[in-house]
């Protein structure tokens, strides 16, 4: 049963991912990306990583992509849909794809080969929220705090940039 679900989700995710880059309409691309995120969350759920699945949908599909869509809809979609694919972006994309495939092959070569340990014999996964929380506040404390400061800087920057226009009005 799990294998069936895996194939359904994996194929769905790949199709949606392909539709992100093949669609010329930006709205369609953005929505395909949402579908891709949802399938990825489903794959996480199949691995019993429910926390990651929920966060994947909550943050990416539910908030980030809504903002993307929000901006795209304010643009002229028709003009965007008419632009042709350019050679330079195709070549650069291919180079990136080859690079990432190479990285992926390195990971797969060094990792545990598939099927070496039967899935049923693995220990039941601990509560993934507790595990992630503990790791964040012990092993990865510094990166975690640095990211927090980075976000704060970004927030202050946005406020500063959007406030700038108000000064002449005050005079």
């Amino acid at each position, binding site marked *: *049963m799990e294998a069936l*679900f895996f194939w359904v989700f994996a194929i769905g995710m790949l199709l949606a991912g392909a539709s992100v880059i093949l669609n010329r309409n930006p*709205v369609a691309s953005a*929505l395909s990306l*949402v579908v891709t995120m949802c399938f990825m*969350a*489903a794959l996480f*759920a*199949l691995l*019993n990583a*429910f*926390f990651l*699945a*929920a*966060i*994947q*949908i*909550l943050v990416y*599909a*539910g*908030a980030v992509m*809504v*903002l993307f*869509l*929000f901006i795209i*809809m*304010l643009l002229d979609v028709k003009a965007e849909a008419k632009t042709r694919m350019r050679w330079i972006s195709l070549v650069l994309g291919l180079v990136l794809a080859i690079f990432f495939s190479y990285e992926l092959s390195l990971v797969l070569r060094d990792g545990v080969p598939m099927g070496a340990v039967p899935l049923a014999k693995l220990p039941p996964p601990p*509560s*993934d*929220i507790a595990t992630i929380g503990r790791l964040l506040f012990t092993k990865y404390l510094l990166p975690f705090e640095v990211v927090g400061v980075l976000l704060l800087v970004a927030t202050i920057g946005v406020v500063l940039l959007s406030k700038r226009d108000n000064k002449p009005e005050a005079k």
Partner: protein
Amino acid sequence: MLMNLSSALAGACVLGQTAAADGGYVLNVAGYSLWPALTITLLILVKVAVVIGVMLFFVSYSVVAERRCSAAIQDRMGPNRTGLPLSGVKVLGLFTVPKWKLLGLGQPLPDSLKLILKEEFTPASVNKFYFTLAPALAMMPSLIVVCVVPYACLVPIHIAFSSPFEFVLNIPNPGVIANIDVGILFAFAISSLGVYGIVLAGWSSNSKYPFLGGIRSSAQMISYEVSMGLSVIPIFLVIGKLNLSDLVQYQATHGWLIFPFPWTSEFTWSQLLLWPCLLLSFVIFLVSAFAETNRLPFDLPESETELVGGYHTEYSSMKFALFFLGEYAALIVASCLMVTLFLGGWSWLTPASWTPWYYNPPAGWLGLAITGLQAITFLIKMAMFIFVFIWVRWTLPRFRYDQLMQIGWKFFLPVALLNILLTAVLLAVIR
């Protein structure tokens, strides 16, 4: 509609499947045990059908409640005539079916028939694919979210009898479809997808008023999602778990979160220190729920006085009905979440030692009946919240859009953050 139901079913099934990995579903009929995977799927399908059936029943009757309550508030009669179908009709000239009016409780049937039979008009300028997809997306999230809401306790039901044939049925987690550890996060995640239906409807209609409605809605829902998400963090700081069933269990032994009554078994007086924080959480959650479900006083995305009908201006017939019903479904989901989070879910206001059978149901048919009683308790509490939503809608005027954004970002967000800090400090002092 069908598409909605089937996708909600599929979603719930997947979750149920993965969440029921611990097994335990057994069905033996006349000495034959069914293939376990099939049993799991069948039982989950039955649960899903029951939950979605009850939910759709409440959706249609909250529409009636809305109309009757608004009438009472405005000193009108409201729809109080419609009885059961065929009542007062002479059958074959032989006898007349008695005419029962039943307080207008037959109203949902003609309402839905009207919506189905209306002409379905699609303007020529719309983007057809997204125009059709949007109503489905608006309804779906609410139907999926109910699968993590615990309607009853998790004590397994075991039904067995040997005559006239041998029958054994084990149902673990009878009170919830998918008992996952991240229940509340899942609920937030899926309901955050609801905005796509509205935004797409506004955009694909290719018309100014719907577009403004869609834009307003996306900004509003994202803003209030933040304060809603932050408002529940104090609860989980106190409890230490994200699972909704554990949360209800905690409230059964420690007192409800907005009303920590001291006659529960594990009550401690230091708990009362946290009470103000949790009350504040409740207020923020309640107000955010109004904004998230697009209800007055925050119904800017469809404010009739400015935007005709808002994002669903161009829709008619069943497509409009899906938006309309989706709104009530979202209302019901918000009520379910509030009951679970703050009002003790299915637990009673009495000490657990008075009614031990209620908190730990015995095996067999009696256990099934008690589980049903718990579900009814839950539904009564939920109906109360639906009434509050209706009551507020017909009492308060609409906010202005800038006021809405100011309350969200400049008041609720900092207050929710301070609330988290205060709760954490208090917890550190108490423990």
